[in-house]
């Protein structure tokens, strides 16, 4: 059955991230000068304005910074998913990314809960990084 939910729309800045996701890698830019790991992707480092950059692959571990539970489907394709959880997950490398918490009920999600990435291969082109409760919390 065709995938009905919205898909990412990679642009010149975000394409490397989404290409990484297809290979199940969370890729971020690290500043070659100050070491700041930035998100969203950008042409220069917002901390020091240096453009020299290397791409790193994040470990896939993180913690729930905060979250919200959708009880209403704002888009028809999510009708069968409610209640579902969107969250800002903070990665130890620095960035905080918007994602879903899966693999537990919404009532089990807590702020600062340890989580780890789980890949949702939604189409041939796109894999979405989602997070589930960590199997072995540090």
């Amino acid at each position, binding site marked *: 059955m065709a995938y009905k*939910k*919205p*898909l*990412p*729309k990679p642009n010149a800045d*975000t394409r490397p991230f989404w290409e990484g996701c297809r290979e199940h890698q969370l890729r971020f830019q690290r500043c070659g000068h100050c070491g700041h790991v930035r*998100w*969203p992707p950008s042409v220069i480092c917002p901390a020091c304005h240096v453009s020299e950059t290397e791409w790193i692959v994040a470990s896939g571990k993180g913690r729930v*910074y*905060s*979250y*919200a*539970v*959708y*009880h*209403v489907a*704002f*888009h028809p394709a*999510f009708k069968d*998913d409610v*209640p*579902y959880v*969107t*969250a*800002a997950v903070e990665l130890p490398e620095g*960035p*905080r*990314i*918007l*994602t*879903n918490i899966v693999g537990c009920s*919404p009532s089990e999600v*807590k*702020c*600062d809960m340890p989580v780890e990435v789980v890949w949702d291969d*939604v189409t041939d082109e*796109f894999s*979405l990084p*989602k997070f589930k409760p960590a199997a072995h919390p540090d």
Partner: protein
Amino acid sequence: MYLKKLKDRYAIAGVGYTPQGNVAGRTALSFYVEACANAIKDAGLTKEDIDGLICYRHFEPVGNDTEVTPYLVAQHLGIRPHILSQEANCARGHLLHAMGLMEAGFCNYVLIVYGDNAHSGRRTFIREATHSEPADDNAAFGEFGAVSNYAMAARRAMYLYGSGPETWKEIGVSQRRWANLNPRAMMYDRSLTYEDYLAANWIVEPFRIYDAALISDGGRACIVTSTERARDLRNPPVSIMGIGEYNLSVDIHQSDFMAGPTGTKEAGKIAFEMAGINLDEIDACEIYDCFTHTVEITLQDYGFFGPGEGRDWFKDGRTAPGGEMPVNTSGGLLSEAYFMGLTPLTEGVMQLMGRCGERQLGSATKTKEPEIILCSDNGGVFQTHSTIIVRRP
């Protein structure tokens, strides 16, 4: 400091209303135009006096509406201002722009306006609903804009210091009591109890329907001019005693201000320093209240109470009619109508002009006679904050 020289130099001289609430069969543009014409009339000016027009941002047109631009508004008003401007993405600097233009000598009478046919046009303020295809990668995760973005921020505040529905129900119920005194308010005829609030379904948890602003048809405008010029006009002028804006400018998901302090803190500091007053000189507040939690965090960041202390502070109707610190006396965005920052600001102005009838601060509502009112406006999801302190000169 230069700002101090601007204290009380500019004033709001007129307010324009339109029919509001559910007003079917009208374009958004028609509300802009009517609100502007009424503000001009209210101030006792003619349209030829208007030399500046600043519009709030306008969302994507609904139905077959054309896009609202300042050119169109000016055309329909039959005016040719020196300056036309429209805010792009919720940076709420309208009053600062107006004051800057007047201080530099470009303008003398500036109109600020917002209007929408959001209710009858079934706008949801969710991009998905007005775009055939969501424009944001977050949509891939089922994340659709303002409600959940604010809900996520509120959740962090619940986790860190015990914000939550017990606090927000007080805010929602107290504002509804103000709306019940305001015949213009969409919720004028509808009471709201704690039980109603707690029984309501979640939209995006931790927010229930009563935590969210209304969606309204209608428009609102005001006219800014020098206090000196305003003295010759129809209404008693209400001067801008202090003003400050601060833009944290980081998407809420990456921000470090989900649980505060938001830009309120810095914007407030600038405005209070300019005004040369303290919090205890504030008689009432008109706070941008897109969600109940926004009222809590804004007043918390101004310093009315410490993190989490809002749970007690809002109790016993402190902010309701008869309370010691009235907040959102029209009913606000939650219970009057949604006209962005013009709902709170124009209410502050009308209160100080003494034109609020049954809900008038003072003896009519067993509250303090207002001399100074603290108003706020927010943009984005806590990305922009604007503080405006107005007073009866």
